């Protein structure tokens, strides 16, 4: 028997549950971050009033509360402080074990705990350099007027700099 609507057990469940952020302008006012990501740029917002560079990028400065923010580029290469490799319990959508994460010093801007891709088990160690890696993820079927349009999405991880 077929069930009307999306059959949640037929490969659509992932999209319904939103593994990655909504990135279209209708659903996210920091959508330029994802546009820049497509260009290989890692950006955040800088406060024009006080010079703060908060991450994640946002609409309002958390230091002086100005809403006069501009987009700036941050480094796309960082240095590994330490590494973890998850061998059991990798969430659906993140590939096969191990799921590698590293604590990465992004040239003094922030210390990020990020996913590392294109990296073999045991390959990465403290002191290694990693670079931004952008990949396509599941598009979102979004209603535009009476049509349903597939909105493409990207996301980022880091990968060993070879």
């Amino acid at each position, binding site marked *: 028997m077929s069930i009307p609507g999306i059959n949640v057990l037929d490969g659509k469940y992932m999209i319904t*549950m*939103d*593994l*990655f*952020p909504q990135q279209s302008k209708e659903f996210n006012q920091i959508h330029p971050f994802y546009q820049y990501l497509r260009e290989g740029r890692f950006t955040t917002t800088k406060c024009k009033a006080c010079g703060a560079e908060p*991450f*994640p990028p946002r609409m309002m400065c958390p230091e002086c509360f100005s809403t006069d923010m501009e987009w700036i580029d941050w480094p796309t290469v960082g240095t590994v402080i*330490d590494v*973890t*490799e*998850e*061998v*059991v*319990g*990798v*969430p*659906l*959508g*993140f590939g096969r074990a191990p*799921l590698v*994460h590293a*604590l990465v010093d992004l040239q003094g801007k*922030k*210390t*990020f*705990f*990020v*996913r590392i891709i294109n990296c073999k088990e045991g390959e990465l160690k403290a002191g290694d350099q990693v670079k931004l890696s952008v990949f396509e993820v599941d598009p979102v079927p979004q209603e535009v007027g009476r049509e349903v349009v597939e909105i493409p999405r990207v*996301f980022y*991880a880091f990968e060993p700099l070879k």
Partner: protein
Amino acid sequence: MERNVCVVAGGMSKWGVRDGSQRDFFQEAAKACYEDNPALNPKDIDGLLVASAYTERTSYQTHLAPLVAEYVGVKPKNICARVELLCASGSSAIILAFGLIKSGQADIVMVAGGEKLYTPQKWEIFYSELASVDHDWDGSQGLGLPPPVFAMVAKQHMKQYGTKKEHLAAVSVKNRRNSAKNPKAQFQNPVTMEEVMKARMIVAPLTLFDCCPITDGAAAIVLAVEDKARALTDKPLVYIRGTGQASLNNMSANMPSWTTWEALKIAANQAYTKAKVSPGDINVAMTHDCFTISEIIEMEDLGFCKKGEGGFFVADGQNDFGGKIPTNTDGGLLGCGHPFGGTGIRQGIEVARQLRGDAIQQVPNAALGLTHNLSGFIAAHTVLIYGREAV
């Protein structure tokens, strides 16, 4: 006149991988709570706070408090709402109930918390937990389920302070031994040091028994203003003396330190100050042992031992019975399990029993007890101090 707030009853459902629904577990918890104090008439309860984090996701149910009220037979008239702070939802609700009673907005408030986390396909909760952290920035890095986060904490703590894998294992052995004596706990069997050391790897250095499980279940506690509490029980009264809850960051990139939990120090200081006690005065503690490394850092940042000595402190038995601060005497998260909204309430119930003198494993003459939860990506800390005397 100062209105003091006391615990008058508490009870839990059986915790574990359970048959049943969220609403079933709330009834089981309420029944156990009513049986704990037959003098309490549930119809006199004038407020209900319900703690649940994943109710919308795994039970497809929002507007939960009136539903729980209907099922457990209470008719609140001063407050009837849900509270959510993930792993600290329960203790957050206790703090709010305390404030409502203290300020005169309510007299007798039930705080009930729980979750049905396992769905017909068990993988779903692992996936849903991507919402537990900043979804857009940390969840999307695959960091919803916390083992990688606490593995990194453990690695940094080991590097910085010489903490050893055996130190982590000592926490697990202690808490599983305690849970084996607690019939409501998820795990009914103890584990040996050898079993813990040889257990299968999850994220190095964390192996299976370093991690708390995913759990179904609920717990309920009733707080009352002192004069009503006195009329309801002949047992020693247990007072809430002080509370603190702090957050300094949410996304991981904004964490001040991975090995010193600054927000915990702030929350603890607030609670100690309001309770007019110091760490050395506390006789028993329930701390958030979601991972073994967590309990070690909590010993340090709650002020029970010096910074960096937590691993050696637990390995020396200093947070076990007979030591400086018996901790997680009912089995903690590692032994009882962790249905998010229920955990802070379970801790409150165990501390109340310790202070009343009727715990399953009693700390002799316990007069001051502490509970602690962390929540999210180590993003908030919640501390309560209970005592046999008012402040």
